[in-house]
């Protein structure tokens, strides 16, 4: 259903252009779930925003193709894109406190999606909005439609965002860090809700998060991004049980665990390189325990480790080859 091919995204800065996402390719089947994991600055959110072309046009350059149902989203005219946004592909964002318009009622904001894409009138849209609030399990939905965002808690607002996103029963929902700004207990509820709605509507979901544990639990397939590049693409089970890329390994080790007695929490040494100042070879080499001299010389390619499992690490690929 969705193929992203060699997507690169550059942003204009004072001194020219910097590359934020570098030649990323992946595919997604209808009704499947995909997780994208990485630290801040890895390019995961930028990749997600590119699918709906939500970057400010004046300082962004996108190359490659993003094909959705046979149409290239990057090449299509604005007007056609507006038709698809919210109807075929919907998106929810990280910060529910600021993602809702403070001066419009939530019923108006949810109903707007339906008014635009299904031509509903105001009254019908408002009624449908109440139904959607019910669907995202907001109690007393009928009375809530006239509320303003500031009258709701963070978790409730994210539910409103979800209601808005699923209003037209999209085929793809992109959730960009949907639980990062919420309490842990609320996080679990929101993820449960997303899981149930996915089933009910039969939509595909891309979940973006810095939390590998959360993603591995939710998604069938996981992409790990580092410094704008895809470093591992594998079924969630593989990543969780036997991550192949040293970076994925580090991310997994960095999840605090209750049943292991640790004096210190693990952290990957060093930090993600600036987009304008990346190392000549492998981006991760300066922080990598397995790094060889060759790693810092030539940028590694993304290669197949096993069927359905790609990594960008020559050291690990070489280690596996004799066995295969």
């Amino acid at each position, binding site marked *: 259903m969705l193929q992203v091919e060699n997507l690169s995204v550059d942003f204009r800065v004072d001194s020219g252009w910097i590359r934020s996402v570098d030649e990323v390719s992946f595919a997604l089947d209808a009704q499947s779930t995909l997780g994208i994991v990485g630290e801040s600055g890895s390019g995961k959110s930028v990749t997600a925003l590119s699918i*709906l072309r*939500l970057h400010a046009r*004046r300082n962004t350059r996108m190359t490659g193709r993003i094909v959705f149902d046979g149409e290239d989203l990057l090449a299509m005219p*604005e007007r056609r894109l*507006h*038709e*698809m*946004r*919210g*109807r075929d592909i*919907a*998106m929810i*964002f990280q*910060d529910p406190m*600021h*993602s*809702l*318009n*403070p*001066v*419009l009622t939530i019923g108006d904001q949810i109903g*707007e*999606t339906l008014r*635009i*894409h299904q031509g509903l009138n105001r009254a019908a849209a408002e009624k449908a909005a109440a139904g959607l609030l019910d669907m995202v399990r907001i109690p007393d939905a009928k009375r809530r439609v006239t509320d*303003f965002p*500031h*009258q709701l808690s963070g978790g409730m607002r994210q539910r409103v*965002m979800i209601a*808005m996103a699923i209003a037209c029963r999209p085929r793809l929902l992109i959730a960009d860090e949907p639980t990062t700004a919420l309490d842990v207990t609320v996080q679990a509820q929101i993820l449960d809700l997303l899981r149930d709605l996915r089933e009910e509507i039969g939509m595909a979901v891309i979940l973006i998060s810095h939390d590998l544990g959360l993603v591995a639990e939710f998604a069938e397939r996981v992409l790990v991004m580092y410094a704008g590049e895809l470093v591992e693409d594998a079924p969630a089970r593989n990543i969780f049980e036997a991550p192949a890329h040293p970076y994925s390994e580090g991310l997994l080790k960095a999840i605090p665990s209750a049943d292991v007695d640790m004096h210190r929490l693990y952290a990957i040494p060093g930090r993600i390189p600036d987009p304008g100042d990346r190392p000549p070879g492998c981006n991760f080499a300066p922080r990598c325990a397995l790094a060889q001299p060759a790693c810092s010389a030539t940028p590694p390619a993304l290669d197949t480790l096993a069927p359905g499992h790609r990594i960008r690490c020559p050291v690990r690929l070489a280690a596996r080859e004799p066995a295969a």
Partner: protein
Amino acid sequence: MPRLIAFRIAQAIPVMFVVAVLTFLLMHMLPGDPATLIAGDMADQDAIAQVRRDLGLDRPVLAQLWLWITNLAQGDFGKSLMLNQPVAEAVWERLPVTLSLALVAFVITIPVGIVLGVVAAVWRDTWVDSAVMFLALIGVSVPNFWIAILSVILFSVTLGWLPSSGYVPMGTDFWRWLASLIQPATVLALFQIGYLARMTRSAMLDVLDQDYIRTARAKGVSPRKTILKHAFRNTLMQVVTVSGYILSLLIGGSVVIEQIFAMPGIGRLLVQAIMARDYPVVQGTMLMLGFAFVFINIVIDLIYAYVDPRVRYD
């Protein structure tokens, strides 16, 4: 809401009292003696002293202040020294002129300033933006008395389209009223248009960067509706706040404009009264202006509560 109104009015009372006392003291600190001016060039010391006694100016300043305040509390603004007329009457007669001038200027400023600001923000960093911001810069930096003179030379003297001075009451002839106001009001508005356009532009740019604008775009809202519905409503809250300030400045600015266009308004009265050391008139006028500013602020607070749902419920 009624509680909010009552609270704001209660707050206004001490403000008005401070305005009254300060104006009084400032006036009496000015050098110059109204009695000398009134008695005329030929008067001898006795005559001047007589006038001073008649006006009550021979008493201690604090006693004069006390008398003035107690009279004020009974609604008596006193009598003008130069006009031989009660202050309230003198101000009341001239009020329509100043109000017409300020309100017409306001009606010009608000739409023009907002539209220019929004246009500049939407086409930011293009030639449209640069052109609007250049005009706005001219508006705020060129003194309006100079623009007024140029404008009179062009529209009144050369083209003969508009009267160069004077004021026709609305009751006499609506069109002549408007014709007498359009030139001074526009000149008065120019500075505020520049200010409002710059303010609106930066408020709009700020709003366009907000997450909820991205949400609207992600839903498939057209760019036009994103600007007009989602962004503009939020920009409006900041515009409402400054619009009260702008109206106050327009009333204040009319002092200069009334001089240039020889319009018999409050501003002209104030300047004449200061020249003649006509204490009661200056004090009464200042008090009226202070009252107008306080009143405008209360109205703005109420409008604000209407535009921003968060104010209504908090």
